[in-house]
């Protein structure tokens, strides 16, 4: 009989090895670089622990029952076709899941509420740095309203200071995600959502849009550079004085679908003339105005045109 069960046991072993492997620090969401991601990591590990207990209980019961009550056992005297329920057992396996769920729900709700607040919970909290992030097919445009600078596909943020991202989209629903700093949030046209993140370490972290939004989705990525406050101040001052101003024409070109070849920096923001959180159709109207009509990917025009992947329409 054990021959029959061996594959099941082997499978169980493989699974548990995988699970243990899953807790190692090599995976990005288990390698947090800021308080938000760290809180989420703790919550996740805690839930994996509880879930592992459930898995073990079920798998052990499963194995024992299969071995003990297999058809070809020697002693069939414990066969009881009329055994059809047990108040006691059924109560147990109703109550225990309820307890487990309470044990999961309490920390979950606590973290949900925490994540809506600034990451600086000290008595004299630092004012967060505000960055407006706008998703445009298929790039990210960042505005620092206070500093008066705008970047494309990268940001610098000061280490140890809360950053408040105000998210919106010029196009389809996108999702702003920097896994090592914390979980994602949608950026939607005609809407503004808010996300607090903070970096505790210096370094460069990858961010991306994680919500599918069409052909260029895969490469809609950006980098987050965490620098010291002094470096950050210097960078803003430099950019303010050295970078070109963002013109309306240039911004409208950025509205065209496509990628940019290099990151960009400007010494003024687009917020003066449009906030996509209030003007959902800005990008669509701009394309219309520039005479760029959306193309059926199987239509004859699209076949002749360059694929947006290799396109640099938005390049300045």
């Amino acid at each position, binding site marked *: 009989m054990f021959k029959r069960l061996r594959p099941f046991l082997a499978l169980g072993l493989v699974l548990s090895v995988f699970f243990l492997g899953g807790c190692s620090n090599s*995976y990005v969401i288990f390698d947090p670089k800021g308080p938000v991601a760290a809180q*989420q990591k703790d919550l996740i590990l805690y839930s994996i622990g509880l879930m592992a207990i459930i898995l073990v209980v079920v798998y052990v019961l499963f194995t024992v029952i299969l071995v003990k009550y297999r*058809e070809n056992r020697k002693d069939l005297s414990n066969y009881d076709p009329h055994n059809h329920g*047990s108040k006691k057992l059924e109560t147990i*396996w109703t109550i225990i899941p309820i307890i487990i769920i309470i044990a999961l729900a309490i920390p979950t709700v606590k973290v949900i509420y925490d994540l809506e607040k600034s990451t600086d919970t000290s008595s004299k909290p630092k004012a967060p740095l505000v960055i407006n992030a706008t998703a445009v097919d298929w790039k990210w445009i960042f505005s620092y309203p206070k500093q008066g600078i705008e970047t494309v596909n990268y940001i610098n943020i000061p280490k140890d200071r809360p950053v408040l991202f105000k998210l919106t989209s010029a196009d389809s629903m996108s999702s702003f995600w920097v896994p090592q700093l914390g979980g994602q949030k949608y950026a*939607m046209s005609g809407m503004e959502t808010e*996300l607090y993140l903070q970096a505790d370490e210096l370094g460069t972290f990858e961010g991306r849009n994680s919500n*599918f939004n069409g052909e260029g989705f895969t490469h809609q990525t950006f980098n987050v550079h965490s620098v010291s406050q002094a470096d950050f101040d210097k960078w803003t001052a430099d950019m303010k004085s050295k970078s070109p101003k963002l013109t309306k024409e240039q911004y409208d070109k950025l509205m065209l679908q496509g990628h940019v070849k290099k990151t960009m920096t400007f010494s003024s923001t687009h917020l003066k003339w449009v906030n996509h959180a209030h003007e959902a159709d800005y990008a669509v109207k701009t394309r219309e105005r520039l005479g760029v009509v959306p193309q059926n990917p199987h239509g004859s025009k699209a*076949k002749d045109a360059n694929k947006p992947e290799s396109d640099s329409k938005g390049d300045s």
Partner: protein
Amino acid sequence: MKWDEFFVTGDPLIYGADVSIALTTVGILFYLTYFKKWKWLWTEWITTVDHKKLGIMYIAAAVLMMFRGGVDALLMRVQLATPDAKFLDSQHYNEIFTTHGTIMIIFMAMPFLIGLINVVIPLQIGARDVAFPYLNAVSFWTFFIGAMLFNISFVIGGSPSAGWTSYMPLAGNELSPGPGQNYYLLGLQIAGIGTLLTGINFLVTILKMRAPGMTLFRMPMFTWSALVTMVIIVFAFPILTIALALMTFDRLFGAHFFTLQGAGMDMLWANLFWLWGHPEVYIVILPAFGMFSEIISAFSRKTLFGYKAMVWAMVIIAAYSFMVWVHHFFTMGSGALVNSVFSITTMIIGIPTGIKIFNWLFTMYKGRISFTTPMLWSLGFIINFVIGGVTGVMLAMAAADYQYHNTYFLIAHFHYVLIGGTVYACFAGLIYWYPKMFGHRLNERIGKWVFWLFNIGFNVCFFPQFLLGFDGMPRRVYTYSAASGWGPLNMVSTIGGFVMGLAFLLFVYCLYYSFRYAKREVAGDPWGVGRTLEWATTSTVPPHYNFAVIPTVTGLDPVETFRNQKIDTKPKLADLKPIHMPDYSGVPFVMAVFFFIAGFGLVFEWYWMGIVGLIGVFITMIIRSFDRNEGFYVGLEEIKETERINE
């Protein structure tokens, strides 16, 4: 519209598909003509209203769709096996994951289950057919034609590429012009009619047509699961109908429900979609639960453990399934209170699910477990589904979901529940009830190979995806860089995918092998362990009227009772009466053809064609309304001969 836009061009894979479609069509036409099968096809199958035949056609169509969806899946896995692969470009990849998801859920999982429900439920409750046999044929043909309409998109006009969730405004004209997305809207709309009708039909059938003595709490668990599923369908599908109609207005008639321009609300689409979508996932899992309950109980030779608890668990799941939809977009920023509430309601759904797992385990406790293939699939289900369930609970923790959402962790979760649950149930149920349909069992030895190959392939394919999720790999990317480090796990996953593909082919071979060589069964209960009325028929494959005399039920597991108390269920001459049965009709098929014409016209915005099709649909309805045909009676002579009763 130019002709080179009508046919999809420029891709060798598509040309290959064109050629194989043409060859298959020619092959089928030739076969039908050469062997003079046209008449047989029309009179026996296309016009049938018999629930067993419709069920078989549902299942056949679903297996075909499983093949199509499976090819899609393997194409994606090839592209993802290595970093920076150039096998598929972005647009092509996007079309493939969109059709894969849509086909697998709408045109594979649901019809497969509805097919098994069709074959089994009327037998299981001791009925001669469903309440509305004609409507049942309409259901099948609208589903089938909807599926075909959706499927031709990849050679004619181009497939949709906005995901099976088709989030707006991405799926709108502004960002997805062309006929592709219209195929999604009209294919689903037409097939959805069929599903809604099935819901009504089986709701009435189960409530009104049970054998004498079969009270609600004496219904087999599969019947219960079907009943609960039908209630969900009746409440959930109208939401989809409306949502699809609104998006169709946006795309075809310039409305602005969900668009960027004209203050459309993209979040409204997400809400409507998941308000249907979450109940939908329970529509495809509850019948699976029901089948596993039957199979585990039969092959443990024990009555179900905690019958009442099992029923209430399903009822609670059904009610709750309408109260959790927000968990699909915790990241929309609805605020801490909303996310907390929906986190908790979602976790609560895990409780009845867990209760069911323990009840299955304890159904085997003190039993005599035989490891037949249907049982193996059921046992594999328990192992895999628990993983799907606990990861579901992990996803339900909104604060943690911000990290899992849109990643391969989510992909792994729903494949563990959908494959480990629904697809395993389709295999288990098909094998278990196969003799009811075809009069012979499937080869057990090949069947076990299929199971082990599939089970191993499945875990090798999807377990690594949890880890890829932890490593931040987003879903729906068509490629990734070597630097991301996702290469090795993706390669493992692809290998697992191909092992599953191999298992599928072996299963098809098993069908063929068993058709050729398996012993033909005659007894009503070839497994010898059946407990419910479908095993009480006089022959393995029931006659078209199912039961000459409807059996009387005195408790749960009636066939087990007949067996233990040596009750002879062979109908007695004195009890025979002529049996009233419905006539076959070609109208449902013709109606579906008109639906196809209307749908195709609307896909390409050829309104004259849409109108012609819809007029045709109305004409078939009118024809039906004036149809005074009352069916026919099966005479005593025929019954006596079928039942081999001598005077």
